[in-house]
């Protein structure tokens, strides 16, 4: 089966060690996490983790089933790129020690609708919000000036429209396998 990029949204109880429990599953089963982001939700007792990884459909289904076995996991949803909005924040520190260079960077920044969040005599720090492609394209251009450091939040994703992750309770996840939900 073909391997492609998947986004997993995981709701977990906000208790000590959850992140390590979740990430351990990935490492144990030999999957590489491309990106991971985590933060609390509207309910401070609940954390939402977004993980982007590569794998075929069967692998992802097995992984989701294994994740649901963890008691700290409340729900797991595999989001497709079509049905979900994805965002990532990237901060890039670029070398720009002359006015010309700084002007050039500022131009690029405005084309990309990115913003400058810090400036010094030697450097500019650029912040860009968007999907992965946009960030990559920007970094590509900035590479000419000399990128000093890069930091990314990891991709977060949310479904389009009325649907939410709360629809995937563990019961409904098992429904596919014939669980009686009554």
């Amino acid at each position, binding site marked *: 089966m073909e391997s492609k990029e998947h986004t997993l949204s995981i709701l977990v*109880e906000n208790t000590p*060690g959850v992140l*390590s*429990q979740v990430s*351990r599953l990935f490492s*144990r089963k030999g999957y590489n996490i491309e990106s991971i982001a985590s933060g609390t939700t509207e309910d401070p007792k609940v954390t939402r983790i977004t993980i982007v990884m590569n794998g075929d459909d*069967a692998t992802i*289904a*097995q992984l989701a*089933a*294994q994740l*649901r*076995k*963890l*008691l*700290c*996991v*409340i729900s797991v949803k595999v989001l497709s790129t079509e049905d979900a909005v994805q965002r990532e924040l990237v901060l890039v520190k670029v070398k720009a020690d002359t006015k010309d260079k700084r002007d050039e960077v500022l131009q690029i920044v405005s084309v990309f609708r990115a913003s400058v969040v810090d400036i010094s005599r030697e450097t500019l720090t650029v912040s860009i919000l968007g999907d992965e492609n946009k960030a990559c394209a920007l970094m590509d251009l900035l590479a000419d000036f000399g990128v000093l450091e890069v930091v990314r939040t990891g991709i977060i994703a949310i479904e389009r429209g009325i649907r939410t992750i709360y629809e995937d*309770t*563990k*019961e409904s*996840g*098992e*429904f596919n*396998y*014939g*669980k*009686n939900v009554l």
Partner: protein
Amino acid sequence: MINGAQALMESLKREGVERVFGYAGATICPAVDALAATDIAYTLVRTEQNAGHMASGYARMMGKPGVCMVTSGPGATNLITGIATAYMDSIPMVAITGQVQSYLLGRDIFQEVDITGACAPFIKHSYLVKDANDIPRVVKEAFHIASTGRQGPVLIDIPIDIQQQMIDPVYPDSVDIRGYKPSVKGNDNQIKRVAASISAAQKPLLCVGGGLFSAKAQEELITLCESARIPVVTTMMGLGLLPRNHPLNLGMIGAFGTPTANRALNTTDLLIIAGARAADRAVTSPKEIASRTKTVHLDVDPAEIGKNFSTTVPVVGDVKVILDQLISHHPKAQSEAWIADLQARRQAETQPAAAPGAGSVTPSYLMRTLGEQLDDDACVCVDVGQNQIWAAKHLPMKHGRFLTTGGLGTMGYSLPASLGVKTAVPDRQTVVVCGDGSFQMFENELATLKAMGTDVKIVMVHNGVLGLVHQIQYSSYSGPFGVDLTGSPDFEKLAEAYGIPGKRISDDGQVDSAIHDMLTASGPYLLICDVDPMTTTSMT
């Protein structure tokens, strides 16, 4: 007010705990002290791993969690193998570990280990208790988690200061864990599909494993296979679900299974896997089988579906309930021709025979004779190695239990497990089958056996080598190395030192009467059977 340790004991009592297997140390002393004041029985083991195995043997006979309790640091790390063994075989267990003072956690002080961290990969769930007020809830949840859904071990790690903390405990009546809602009933539509598939099948086959013991679904299995006319094969963990001589029992599948069982697996047109993960040792080519035949998987753990086997019709739920649901549809397969053919093949399989005068005992004959002489409902606790495979292949089960560690294959399991069995069902005949290597992994527990004053018979396959590894090295590597058990003691004398009578035999001619003498002796007994180290598991 009472302290946390007393609340722990009261919580255990409320869960119906009658016995704890343990080993004390500084950080568990408050709990041991509190236990001493209750009527909960306590068994002192000789190494912590075996507290786990004893709890496992107890749990498997009682159908409820076994409890073990050890100290922090080395006590906890020694217990790890017991926990992992229970996890791999889905045995319900609650393990309690002492821990250093909660305010010193993380400073690597004397006998501190992160045991919840260490056990994470092979435990169903674990708790590190940081407030004694949580103890009643944690214990209630731990027993619930260990004994429902796919059963397994749960760890409760309790720092000593928490055991000593004074509280007014509140004992909950019920459990509500947001992230834990195991399925019970199978989906009705799926059940109908399975029933219809059975009725349409000509060569249906049930492949059953240890999950049916966990679900206590033996009777349902017998009803279904007989009424729907479906022959049955088992994994090693499923041995004993049906008596060996049941007309629909084709025996064990896998590399060490019967030819008829494997043939059935490879020619069935409807494979129903129930309560089995059908891992590599049982099914060597799952892809091949799944590509050719329709497969139904009945399991309580949704993550098992499709893990080792791609499944046409999955049903998640308690297997006992699912089998009952299936039975209510009265499915009936068109399988008489297939059954007749398989039964003929099963009949034609060669029976192990004695070869007297060879100067060594024939293992298959030994197992067959042992099985024939055992009580109908005897419990056989089997270790790991060639002895295990010979027992699995040749020891005819009647209505007893065959307890072995199919998942982790932990040498040294058999005797401690048998002691757990004895605490659960003291009146049932209990026999250990082990090798001379595995014996030396548990021999310290002869003291526990003695102290318990209980009656376990031990049959040792004495071949002077780590037999199964020896066999593999012969067939697949440059030859035997590092598997010679030279230096082993005179086992008869060793047993005698513990006050346990023993006998050594070295010929098939002695087998029958030696087993008889062992089984009729009162109290524990060690029967040492000299076996030629060149005997392999493929010989009959």
